[in-house]
């Protein structure tokens, strides 16, 4: 068993991880439906607020460079209360990792392997993720680096191919703000802000391990903007291809859009490209949440996180299947319960609660040092 190691991630790898993480499952399921044809505006607004959240997370980390969120909890509240917070976050990360994995399993079961049990898909997918995490954060970064060009170009190519196929109807985007600003704000709070932008909280476990921490702020913000632009592109693609109602009804709108592609009556069924995009996005997203939970366990138990990769991975596979009986229930929980009871407290309330204590304690320490 390898001992506790200090792993380093380059800034480019951090950028790629955030970019893929943000697009991850947000590209699969339909987001911002409350805003109807203005979903792209809602995503843009959520990205703007997401930048604020990212700044807050970075500010917290910059007060104690080299320490992750859980270590900050211990610094602020002492060992016992800090460990309690850590345990809560571990559960949150595991739960969200399971939800993200379930998104992918549902997609595979509905579109490709309709005879295969969902349990089998969840477990095999987890094997890949467990292996990657066992090898460490650096391997996760390098894997993302290798697949990034395919991931990026495939998303762009799908848009271009749909456009050339003549399936896009830009009038679907009008009237802009026809129902006013209220539906847009309803889509932003809490849904779009927390999913996917608020989920950046998981990166408070990764950003401290970047090679140039001081430059990580700029890179994080750039990655959030890049992923936001990509999500807007996605939303425009889906709305123009499917229309507002069909997009809202579709379980996987990007996949449905890709199915419309037919070039020269020869290039068809390119939806498999979407499956690749989704698969890689979900591998990264689950890995980041999983890694966050593992670092928490490492801190609590004082044992290397690699010891927990297999046991906790099996729990994620179990929970992802047992989380709901069917896809409708899974989405209902994801839209009603999770943003309110999990995302808002863990992404906003707890960090906001910690922030004043952190400021007070770090200031006090500086004065003592002087």
């Amino acid at each position: 068993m390898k001992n506790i190691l200090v792993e380093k991630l380059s800034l480019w790898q951090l950028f790629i991880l955030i970019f893929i993480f943000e697009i991850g499952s947000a590209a699969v399921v339909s987001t911002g439906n409350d805003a109807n044809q203005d979903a792209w505006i809602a995503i843009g607004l959520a990205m703007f607020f997401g930048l604020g959240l990212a700044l807050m997370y970075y500010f917290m980390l910059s007060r104690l460079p080299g320490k992750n969120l859980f270590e900050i909890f211990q610094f602020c509240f002492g060992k016992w209360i800090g460990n309690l917070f850590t345990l809560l976050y571990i559960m949150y990360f595991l739960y969200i990792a399971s939800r993200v994995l379930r998104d992918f399993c549902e997609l595979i079961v509905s579109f490709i392997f309709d005879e295969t049990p969902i349990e089998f898909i969840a477990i095999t997918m987890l094997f890949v993720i467990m292996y990657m995490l066992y090898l460490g954060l650096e391997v996760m970064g390098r894997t993302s680096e290798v697949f990034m060009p395919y991931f990026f170009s495939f998303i762009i190519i799908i848009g271009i191919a749909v456009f050339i196929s003549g399936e896009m109807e830009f009038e679907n985007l009008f009237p802009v703000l026809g129902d006013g600003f209220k539906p847009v704000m309803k889509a932003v709070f809490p849904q779009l802000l927390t999913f996917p932008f608020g989920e950046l909280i998981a990166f408070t476990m990764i950003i401290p391990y970047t090679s140039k921490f001081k430059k990580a702020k700029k890179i994080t913000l750039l990655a959030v903007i890049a992923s936001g632009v990509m999500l807007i592109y996605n939303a425009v693609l889906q709305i123009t291809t499917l229309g507002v109602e069909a997009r809202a009804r579709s379980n996987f709108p990007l996949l449905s859009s890709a199915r419309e592609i037919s070039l020269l009556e020869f290039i068809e069924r390119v939806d498999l490209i979407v499956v690749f995009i989704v698969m890689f996005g979900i591998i990264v997203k689950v890995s980041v949440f999983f890694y966050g939970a593992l670092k928490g366990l490492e801190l609590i138990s004082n044992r290397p996180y690699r010891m927990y990769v297999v046991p906790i991975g099996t729990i994620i596979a179990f929970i992802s299947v047992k989380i709901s009986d069917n896809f409708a229930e899974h989405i209902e929980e994801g839209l009603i319960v999770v943003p309110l009871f999990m995302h808002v407290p863990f992404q906003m309330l707890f960090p906001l609660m910690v922030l004043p204590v952190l400021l007070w304690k770090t200031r006090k320490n500086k004065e003592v040092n002087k």
Partner: protein
Amino acid sequence: MVTFLFTFLLLASIGVITMFDLYLYESSLMSILDANIFFEKGTSQWMLFVNLLVGLIYGMVVDYRFRQSKKSSKSS
């Protein structure tokens, strides 16, 4: 420690799932435990339990080896 945390997190996750189900569907706790968590009618449920068992045994072995290596390093 690994076994303890494994069991704790598994039970806590089941608790969270059950709570959310209760919140959404207002069904009784026992019916949810009965239908949703353990004894679902599907034929592939065994995979999940084998998967959990592998996780548990792996955790136990790894934890045992960690404690042994700590002990031996202390004695030497």
